[in-house]
Structures are given as C-alpha cells and as structure tokens.
C-alpha cells in the first residue's frame, strides 16, 4: 500500500514527484486533523464548554442550590467569590449559572439555525448545479439578488415589528445564512455531475432526485462540513448581536448576547457581569473558528496555502 506524497509539497515543487492516491480522502483528512494541534486543542476546549453548559447547571443546583432565575436580594452585585464564582447580578442571580444557561440557548439557536441553513443551502445548490442551464442561471441570479439585500436590517425590522419568538429567530438566522452554502454546493455539484458514477446512475435510469441526493450530495460532504462548522460561530455571533439589541432571545430566557447587554449598563462598577459571559462566548467562538479552519485544512489541503 502506497501512501500519498504530501500534496502541499507537490504544489511547491511541481514536477518533483507524482501524487499517488492510496489511502482514502477521509483517512487522510483525519490524520491531518489530528496532527493539527490547534484544531485538536480547539475541539477539546469546545467539548469542555459544551459539557459544562449541558451538565453544569444541574451540578450547581445540587451543590449550591442556585438556579438561573433564582433571585436573592441579599447578594446583589457580588464580586466573584467561592460561593459565586462569576459573581452575582443586579437581582442577586448567580452569573455562572446564568452564563451556562445562556450558553445552552446560544448554542441551541446557532446549531438549529445552521441546520436550517444547511438544509436550504444544500438542496438549493444541488438542484441548481445539477439542473444547470437556464434554471441554474435563474436560481443563482436570485441568490445574487438576496446577497445584495441588507439582510441584517431586514431581520431587525422583522424582529422589531413582528414577533420576537425563538422559532422566528431560528428561521430568520437560517434563512440569511444559506446563500454561501448554496454557492459552494453548486460549485461542487457542477464539478462532479459529469463523473462516471453519475453517468452510470443516469444510464440505469435512476430518478433525478435520487441521483442528486444519493449520488451527488454525499460527495460534496467535505466542503459542506467545513462550511457548516464555520456557519455555527457566525450564526451565534448574529444571534448574540440581535439579543444584545434586545431583539433576539427574550426574558426570562437569556443567551450570552442578552447577558452581555445587561452587563454593559454597569461596566464601570460591576465589570464581571459583562466579562464572564463575554469571555465564555469569545472562547467558544474562538475554538469553533479554529476547529473549522482545521477541518478545512484537513479536508481540502489546497484551500489554505501552506
């Protein structure tokens, strides 16, 4: 079994040696990912945050007896202490628990919205690319037009004037972030739709939707995974931004965005109300972005040039 020569070096020294593809793309990718220390560290950090956000509130409730909505007028605006690691807010609520619960909401919104954008984007892009011709042109023109709309303004309008419902928020965030995904998938589909295995499927009379979703879409998985990993932090940022403006997640629920917004009002006196949820959010976004970059390098070594 021959292992392939590192493709990046082939790019640097064209002609210097032949690329022999032996191991599969996915094995290669995993090996490259595991070797990328930053990506591995990011994955670990993100897992820790995820775990803390999911089980942390229950542990705290059992140990100290705090919940995210429990007010206590005797411990208003406490600095961080052994009893309240992140301090308390203006109503005496424990900021650690609130940050963990806020993280649940932030992550939930981001993941659901990313899945929405994934479904729309992949379906749209695959259909457009596969059908080609006039249909493709019209569908891509439509994407171009949507690109040129000031989407964030429209979302603000929708949320401000209509409903501040969580479901509406999911739909909105998903609906604005599928455009790039559609373009990526379309490009991928264009490049593989004339490959032998697709021709073969067509020749034996497989139906068009089946060809698209059984044979073509699975082969676009690499870029789709990468882009989804990068969509999650970007959606999370948008959600936080909307929540910061008071348009996203509504009380009694809170996300990292709403916590930061509450904290801004009192930064000169009680900065930790802002700093802790803000840092938690930043670390999460940081690790997700690094993980996404690492995945991209692993799945598509030509994309990042080094």
């Amino acid at each position, binding site marked *: 079994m021959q292992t392939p020569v590192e493709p990046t070096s082939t790019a640097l020294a064209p002609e210097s040696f032949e690329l022999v593809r032996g191991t599969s793309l996915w094995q290669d990718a995993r090996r490259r990912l595991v070797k990328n220390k930053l990506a591995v560290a990011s994955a670990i950090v993100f897992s820790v945050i995820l775990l803390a956000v999911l089980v942390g509130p229950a542990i705290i409730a059992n140990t100290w007896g705090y919940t995210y909505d429990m007010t206590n007028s005797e411990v208003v605006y406490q600095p961080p202490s052994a009893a309240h690691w992140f301090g308390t807010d203006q109503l005496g609520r424990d900021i650690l628990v609130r940050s963990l619960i806020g993280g649940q909401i932030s992550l939930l919104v981001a993941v659901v919205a990313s899945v929405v954008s994934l479904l729309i984007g992949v379906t749209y892009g695959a259909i457009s690319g596969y059908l080609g011709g006039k249909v493709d042109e019209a569908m891509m023109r439509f994407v171009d037009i949507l690109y*040129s*709309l000031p989407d964030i303004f429209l979302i603000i309008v929708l949320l*401000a004037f*209509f409903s501040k419902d969580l479901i509406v928020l999911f739909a909105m965030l998903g609906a604005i972030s599928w455009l790039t995904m559609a373009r990526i998938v379309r490009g991928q589909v264009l490049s593989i739709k004339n490959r032998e295995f697709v021709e073969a499927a067509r020749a034996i009379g497989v139906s068009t939707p089946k060809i698209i979703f059984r044979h073509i879409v699975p082969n676009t998985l690499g870029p789709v995974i990468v882009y989804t990993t990068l969509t999650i932090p970007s959606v999370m940022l948008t959600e*936080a931004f909307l929540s*910061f*403006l008071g348009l996203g997640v509504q009380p009694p629920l809170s996300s990292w*965005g709403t916590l930061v917004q509450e904290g801004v009002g009192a930064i000169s006196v009680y900065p930790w109300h802002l700093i802790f949820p803000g840092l938690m*959010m930043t670390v999460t976004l940081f690790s997700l972005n690094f993980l996404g970059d690492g995945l991209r390098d692993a799945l598509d070594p030509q994309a990042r*040039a080094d």
Partner: protein
Amino acid sequence: MLKFVLRRLLLAIPVLLVVVTISFFLVRLAPGGPFMEERAYPPAVIEKLNAKYGLDKPLHEQYFNYMQRVILHLDLGPSTRYLDRTVGDVIAQGLPNSMLLGGTAYLTALVLGMAAGIIAALRQNSGVDYGAMAVAVLGVSIPNFVLGPLLVIVLSLTLYWLPPARWGDLSHLILPALTLSALYTAYIARLTRSGLVEVLRSDYIRTARAKGLRESVVLLRHALRGSLLPVVSYSGPALAFLLGGTIVVEKLFLIPGLGNFFIEAANARDSFIVVGVTLVVATLLIVLNLVVDIVYALIDPRIAYK
C-alpha cells in the same frame, strides 16, 4: 467601461425598488402603529396623527403615495419618532457621523490587516505567522459588543487614556473605531495572507525570481497586485455596512449615527425612517460593489467589462 457602469446602475434601480417595497410592506403590515405603543395618547390624538401622516389610508394607497414622493421628489417622508423632523433630516445628521466612524475603522483595518497579512505570508509557518493568524482568529471571534466594553474598561476606566462613550472631538473616535476595526482587521489580515501565499507560489513569481530581481521588487512589483484582489472584493460589502451605520458600536458609544437612529426607529415603529435607512444602506452596497468591480478591472487587465 462607461457602458458597463451605466448598465449596472440601471440594474440597481429594480433592486432598490424591491428593497423599498419589501421593507415598506414589512413595516406597514406589522400589527400596531407608530403611535400605539408606550406613549399613551388618547385615541382621538392617534387618529389625528395617523391622518396627518396618511396612515389612515388603505395600504396600497399609502404605498403609491410613498413611492411617488420618493421617486419624484426624493422625499423619504416624515419621521414619527422625531416629530418635527423628516427622514431626510435624520439621515443628513446620522450619515456623516456613521461615515466618519466607519471610514476611520476601515482605513485602520486596511493598514493593520494588510501589514499583518503581508508579514505573516512572508514569514510563512513561522512563529510570527502562527501568532498573527491566531490573533486574527481571535479578532473574528470576539464580538464587538464584548470588545468595546473591554476596551472601555481597560483604556478609559482603568488607565484613563481615552474618554469613554461620548461624541464630540476626534479623541472620542478612537475607541469606537478600534472596536469596529478589529473584525475587519482580522479578516483583511487573513485574506491578504492567503492571497499572497498563493501568489508567491505561482509560476510568474518564480519567473520574476529567475530574472534576478530583489525579493522586495518581487513582492512589490509582482506579487502584491494579485494578492490584493480578495481584499478588494471583500471591501465592497464590508465598507457598505461600515459606512451605513454600525448599530452595536454606535449604540455602545452613544454615537448619533445612522445605525443608532435605525434601531431606535425600529423599536419605535417609525416606518419611514426604517425604510429610508434601509434604502440608504442598500444604495451604498450597490454603489460600493460597483466600485469594487471597477477597482478589480483596474488591477486585473484580464477583466474587461462590456
């Protein structure tokens, strides 16, 4: 080229009409009106106010009246939030502030980002490169409503170097511009780096080196142009949003810019301001994308517009 510009401007008209129409119906179809909430006017007053602003007429009539005014008189209507002012007045006050802030932030981002990107690309895979790119990922990950307050805490509340949120002389521009530029600096650094790394690996750079040119000449005369292209295409939409008012930073630093007016108006259901500001941003977006295409053609002789 002139023909191309004219055609693009012509194409912009339907897009702007769509934007106005969508945002108009969005805000007008929403339940409630500008005089319903919060301010407890007696019903008779509301009726009178509605009649004054033409809000009592059927929706399609309102739309046609509005469009007529916009197209024929470039009149964006009265403001219901700021009772004695027109939307035009509000934009005339907010846009220069937003442009000053956004322009400063963009220039900062361009200078810092390109410098960091070039250094990282030239010292590819060194500690400097990894450090710069890690900072860049951090820049993409830290939300500006977290960064802004942190900068305020450190630079004005702890070190007393800079005034906190207020708007007046130029020293008040520094903190918001820094806050705003972080994300864009990070993006531009990444784009510059990857663009330059790719160009430095291309055949024509090898040719330039084979001529015996100095590395600085290779970089400045041969490599930089091509590596600018991704930054140029990114700059169009980025600038449009920067100049068109950045809601969070303006709100955070109490800057009377377009973004601040927009969010206040949205919350007060001032439909004319909302539609007007959306129109301004959409126009900026279209114009700046056109500028990007023109700059692109100036840099890359292979692109010819007909």
